[in-house]
């Protein structure tokens, strides 16, 4: 028997509805450790919701999500789904990190404070060690000299790079990126994508990237996933998929992109 690699993220038939609106209609996806996956799709396709479900920022109504083998948000008890205790949810979330569209840096902490907060308050890392590591990470995103600045004193691109450093500081097994360049002025997109490209190249961490940046999706990702209408429509090698889309829906989506 061949070695079976334990998947890093396993999504099986996940369903989610907001009132009458079913936004995820049975999504399945398996992601291996170190893989970089880009999810693309029109707005309302459910890609952001899926990402938020992986971090349990949204509950889901059916199916299972497992991260590193651990079920997310629920446990099984006699065939029924029982919500996990808040503590266990928090523990799971600490293993995954998320970078948000609106950065969501804590405005009352400096850049360094934002980066060291998780390690000191959740992981119990000593202050000095966290600070040293935090400065290292800020250097990695090119913001070593901004360590003492508050978020309001930084540009959007700089804030997003701090947010990436904050996520990295948790040594996450999986990093989730939710349209991280959408809120940025066009001239600031490049610096953030460069940091993400560096991360992807190092293959140290599993990345799931919801994005509108086709170049990033094509060049940095190992796999491309196209979602529409709450399901995965097509997935595969990025370049091949973009050049030779199989489904009508992906063709239509890409056409709109080229025209834009």
């Amino acid at each position, binding site marked *: 028997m061949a070695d079976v690699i334990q998947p890093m993220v396993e999504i099986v038939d996940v369903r989610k509805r907001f009132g009458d609106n079913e936004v995820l209609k049975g999504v399945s996806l398996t992601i291996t450790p170190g893989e970089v996956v880009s999810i693309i799709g029109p707005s309302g396709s459910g890609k952001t919701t899926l990402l938020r479900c992986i971090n349990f*920022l949204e509950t889901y109504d059916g199916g299972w999500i497992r991260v590193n083998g651990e079920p997310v948000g629920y446990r099984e008890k006699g065939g029924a789904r029982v919500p996990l205790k808040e503590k266990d949810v928090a523990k799971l979330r600490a293993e995954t990190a*998320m970078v948000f569209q*609106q*950065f969501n*840096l*804590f405005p009352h902490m400096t850049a360094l404070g934002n980066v060291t907060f998780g390690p000191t308050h*959740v992981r119990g890392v000593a202050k000095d060690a966290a600070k040293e590591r935090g400065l290292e990470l800020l250097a990695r995103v090119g913001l070593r000299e901004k360590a003492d600045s508050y978020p*309001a004193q930084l540009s959007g691109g700089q804030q997003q790079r701090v947010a990436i450093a904050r996520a990295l500081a948790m040594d996450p097994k999986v990093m989730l990126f939710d349209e991280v360049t959408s809120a940025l002025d066009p001239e600031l997109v490049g610096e953030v994508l460069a940091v993400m490209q560096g991360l992807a190249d190092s293959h140290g961490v599993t990345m799931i990237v919801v994005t509108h940046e086709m170049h990033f999706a094509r060049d940095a990702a190992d796999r491309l996933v196209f979602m529409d209408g709450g399901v995965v429509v097509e997935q595969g090698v990025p370049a091949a998929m973009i050049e030779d889309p199989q489904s009508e829906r992906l063709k239509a989506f890409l056409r709109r992109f080229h025209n834009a």
Partner: protein
Amino acid sequence: MEKTLSAIAQNLDLMLGGLGVTLVLSVLIIFFGTIIGFLGGMGLTSGPRWLKALLRVYVDIVRGTPLLVLMFLLFYLMPEFGVDITGFQTVVVALSLFAGAHISEIVRGALTGIPKGQADAAKALGLTYWPMMREIMIPQAMPAVVPPWTNTAIEMVKGTSLAFLLSVSDLLFETQNVVERTGIALPFYFTAALIYLAVNLLLSRFGHWLEQRNRYAA
């Protein structure tokens, strides 16, 4: 004039004793009101539905009723439940509930004003509810909480004067006693007014100091 001055001098210690009671009342009320208010405000924003409904009823009833009615209600009603309650205790409980309701609304408003992404980011780092409140939400709510909190605190210092109506010997009660005993009115009343003014101006200063301390780079 000389007679008035010596009357003030003779009775000042009585009034200062009353001031002591007023200050103790104020500190207790602001303390309890603040605790009730922060817990209430958190419950109103992130509590389970039954708690939200319960707190909403509490806040709306208390804010729609005169403080004086609340005070008398407690004072006359508690004995009916077999609870002996002194005038002093009544004032502390009634005004704490009153301040608590107002501060609940203040804290609720401030918490609601924080962008939703802040809670997402805190949860994504693996924070549970109480650490998230303590480290992320409350510090960000403070700039919006402090100014109206200070106003509420000043209203409460003034509100302690209602203790007079339950014969608690606060500043106003002692002042009225002295006025009735000496037959000298305005000098004593204005002395009392100046004392209240001084206490509240100090409280305002404290509020400004809190504001400065809770500011972060914008």
